């Protein structure tokens, strides 16, 4: 297991945002957490990145307990996140945003670094065209691409994606999920948080359903996608 979460509890004040959740992510796979708004998906990802304090439970990465590590140490270990609502730096250009993604790297002048920039541009040709554009002036879809590309610049072992399809046109959603699969096939483990359950289950090897802060179902993507109760609750009846 690349990532192991054991009995994780996170509070916002007195409100329990996540209650005793446990799951793992196998190296080289795509795992997904699906669930309705407010189920605790984003909180889970923020906690994995070290942005939220853990009340109880542990998070292990490559067998190492990282529960108490600050966010920047986790990025150095290889956990990188594309946050919800895109979270790009609006006042920076595309190139500067990508540079921020590589903040913890010390090889910014190297060929490997340029290769990684090229890789992002190959995945998202739009970004190359817009490299000098100020990110805040780009469309929602472009900002989403930039956020994912930026997260890749850290050369992550584990890529955390928070709602990459949010607010995008259906065509673009297909495209983004295609790219996520491609990134995974290039060797990056992905943990995907989504409200678009149909697409997420189709792409994911393993899936977990979050309801009001608890995991209520787990299985392979195909299993859950074929389950009647999951269909009724999350897939709008038809896939």
């Amino acid at each position, binding site marked *: 297991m690349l990532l192991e979460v054991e009995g994780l509890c996170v509070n916002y004040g007195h409100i329990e945002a996540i209650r005793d959740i446990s799951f793992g992510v196998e190296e080289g796979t795509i795992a997904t957490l699906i669930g309705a708004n407010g189920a605790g998906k984003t909180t889970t990802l*923020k906690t994995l*990145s*070290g*942005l939220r304090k853990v009340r109880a439970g542990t998070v292990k990465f490559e067998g190492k307990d990282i529960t108490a590590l*600050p*966010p*920047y140490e986790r*990025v*150095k270990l290889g956990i*990188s*996140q594309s*946050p919800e609502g895109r*979270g*790009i*730096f*609006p*006042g*920076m*250009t595309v190139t*500067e945003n990508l*540079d*921020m*993604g590589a*903040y*913890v790297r010390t090889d910014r002048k190297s060929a490997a670094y340029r290769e990684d920039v090229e890789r992002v541009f190959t995945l998202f040709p739009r970004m190359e065209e817009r490299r000098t554009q*100020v990110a*805040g002036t780009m469309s929602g879809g472009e900002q989403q691409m930039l956020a994912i590309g*930026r997260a890749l610049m*850290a050369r992550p072992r584990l890529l955390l994606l928070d709602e990459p399809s949010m607010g995008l046109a259906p065509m673009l959603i297909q495209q983004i999920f295609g790219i996520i699969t491609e990134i995974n096939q290039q060797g990056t483990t992905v943990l995907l948080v989504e409200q678009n359950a149909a697409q997420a289950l189709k792409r994911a090897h393993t899936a977990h359903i979050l309801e009001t802060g608890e995991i209520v179902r787990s299985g392979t993507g195909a299993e859950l996608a074929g389950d009647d109760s999951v269909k009724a609750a999350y897939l709008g009846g038809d896939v």
Partner: protein
Amino acid sequence: MNFSFLFNNFAELTVTGLAFGAVYALIALGYTMVYGVLQLINFAHSEVFMYGTFATLWMTITLVGSGNPGGLQTFGIMAAALLAAMVVSGAIALMLEKFAYRPLIKRNAPRLIALISAIGASFVLAELMGVRDDVAGWFGLRETLDDYVGGARVNQSMPNIVQNRTLFAIGEYNIRMVDVIVILSAILMMVGLDQFVRRSKTGRGIRATAQDPETAALMGVNSTRVIQMTFLLGGLMAGVAAFLYMLKIETTKFDVGFLLGIKAFTAAVLGGIGNLRGALVGGLVLGVVENWGSALFGGEWRHVVAFVLLVVILLFRPTGILGESLGKART
């Protein structure tokens, strides 16, 4: 209203106004950077400046002694005094961050609490300088250090190191060397800082944190270090400001920071708080208008002119002259 005085001395008034403005601008940088990153007004920043003036004063007294330096020696003394001011101001700024702010930020205290902590720290630092002869007395150093700690609550004067001679004249107006040094060095420091924030890795971390602290943390930016760097840079700039102020004014006092701090804060708000270039614009505008105003209405109207200007500009442009925040400053 003395129009003829203003018009007859227009160039000179403008240049001395710019010199004051440059000092305001350098101090304003500290307010504006900390605000940009933490959305917090560091009210103790005025004391960071005040300690810098004393560092300049004491270093100059020590080096000049009873001699009469000239030429290269003068240059060496100025360099040493500038360095002393920057080190002392930088250190005070870092201490403020560590003791007055970090414990509060760690606990997620409301900004209002941090503001009160800043006001408290400001008074403690100022009064400590005001009772320095007593403090020296506790350690039995009152006599040895008399040149430095005597007259703690009155104005202290520095030996004149830059001759106040005329450098050149525009028409009939005399432009003094000290004003030129002050304006040029302030602009140089500003440009340097601006480039640092835009180009260096630390600068990118500061800008990213100002735009979105959580996302910056996700990129691997160590927010504690960014906050420290922000305070340090502000402190260094206040140190430069203190040195230049001492070159021009030559006297200082334990409470000198109060009015200058408020003026610099005004300059920061005037230019657009959170915006580095705004601090420069705000400082220069404030310095010049204030100087014209005091020529027009008389010296006692100086502060009235400054704050009326602030109110008028904010009425029409609530975000200040340049308005944009530090985070949104573009390349």
